[in-house]
């Protein structure tokens, strides 16, 4: 079971990615909760997440959110712009799993 949180300015464009990532999780037969929020809600929702991925257009939020992520002990990453543009759910999902795995060690 993985919980993946995505955040962008209003949670609109990242929600495009959510459905693609859910499809990828289903294909792998994995149980995953994936959801997108506006940047202001990210700090609160991080409590329920194993990882936070932020849209590249909001990468200037990274520094601020990193503090919260460190407190929660979860990894945070900026989504690769190319994967973001192509709405490549598979690649983003894989990256998320890798980062969660790495974080466990």
């Amino acid at each position, binding site marked *: 079971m993985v919980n993946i949180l995505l955040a962008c300015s209003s949670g609109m*464009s990242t929600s495009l990615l959510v459905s693609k990532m859910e499809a990828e999780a289903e294909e792998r037969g994995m149980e995953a909760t994936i959801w997108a929020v506006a940047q202001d809600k990210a700090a609160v929702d991080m409590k329920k997440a194993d990882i936070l991925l932020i849209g590249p257009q909001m990468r200037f939020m990274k520094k601020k959110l990193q503090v919260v992520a460190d407190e929660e002990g979860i990894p945070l990453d900026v989504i690769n*712009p190319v994967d973001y543009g192509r709405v490549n759910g598979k690649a983003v999902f894989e990256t998320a799993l890798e980062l969660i795995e790495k974080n466990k060690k």
Partner: protein
Amino acid sequence: MNKFMEMLENVLMPIADKLNNNRYLTALRNGFMVALPLIIFGSIFVVIANLPFLDQVLSEDAYAAYQSALGPASAATLSIMGLFVMIGIGYKMVEGRGGEAIYGGVVALASFLILTPQVVEGVGGVIPTGSLGAQGMFLGIFTAFISAELYQYFVSKDLTIKMPEGVPSAVSRSFSALIPMTLTLSFFLVIRLLFSFTSFETVQNFIYTIIQQPLTALGSGLPATLLAVLLIQIFWFFGLHGQIIVNSVFDPIWYSLNDQNLAAYQAGEELPHVVTKQFIDTFIVGIGGSGMTLAVIIAIMVVAKSRQMREMGKLGGPPGLFNVNEPVIFGLPIIMNPLVLIPWLLAPVVVAAVTYFAMSTGFAPKPAGVIVPWTTPPLLSGYLATGNNIMGSVMQLISMAIVFVIWLPFIKLLDKQYYGEELKAQKD
């Protein structure tokens, strides 16, 4: 080229970071977010109250009765939006400092009301609703900032009455707010008194004359507007969310211009401003997202031969209808792509200038002050934002044509490059 790009990004990132993470601007943005559902509720009823042809179908009396029956919906929300914005700001400011947020909301409201003249044409015991809307917007914002900071400062100084143990926490909380609240509100009472000795008479009047009027006059002009539009594009070119950064500075100006148009629209008078919140949200950004990329997608669908471009068009089309265009911006890609820099910067600026002149000369209607959610598809949004005027949609259509023409040669160029690469890959 790469060096130069890196240099620019190094300049822009800290600006974006500062503007977006500044506690005052964050509270301001969140304050507007708090008010947004109310603003949209009010807007919906302005639209319903001014449905086309109704004035011709109904008798004059029936139409007036219909309008006044729906009037309170916008009078209680959209017209006095400053009130909700300042409560939101006060709340978010204190929340940001880790205090009890609701007191931030009420201290902002009470401080603002202390500064507000409570007499209208000699009649006492009233609060002029005008001062709760556009006119009081700036005072409301400043008051919310200052009062919330003062309140939280006094709380942090531990100027609170300590209750003995065993007193229910709710009771002790209500007392703990007492001294900081008293000090903060007294401060604003003194301010009000001091201003009553000046030629401005009220703080309301002072802020309006000294700050709000010059700023909105500047912000409603074409140069400042073109600059704002250009900045949005430049930030986005580096893959940074342009609007959210520029809005945090311009929103107070654009919203108060919007409210002035609304007041004139509801009074049946000539609309004073072209540039308003809706001018940007509906007639520039609202045509497929920042950079007005819906017309770019259409250009791709019309001329592109490469698989990569056509895929992009299919992927970006549906969200683009609702003004979500990150797939195009990051996928085409537009970011950091020198090939499309010219149309990316040029098209919105040209459209802004053309729209400005079309509205100033009366060819197209000015925004009526109705707030249309930014995800409303273009054409429909132009119709609604101008108070149910089909010429608003026509204006958007013209703008799309302009974007289409400016982008077409560049799309062909990009497509040729991709198509060549694809052919080569096939041969290999």
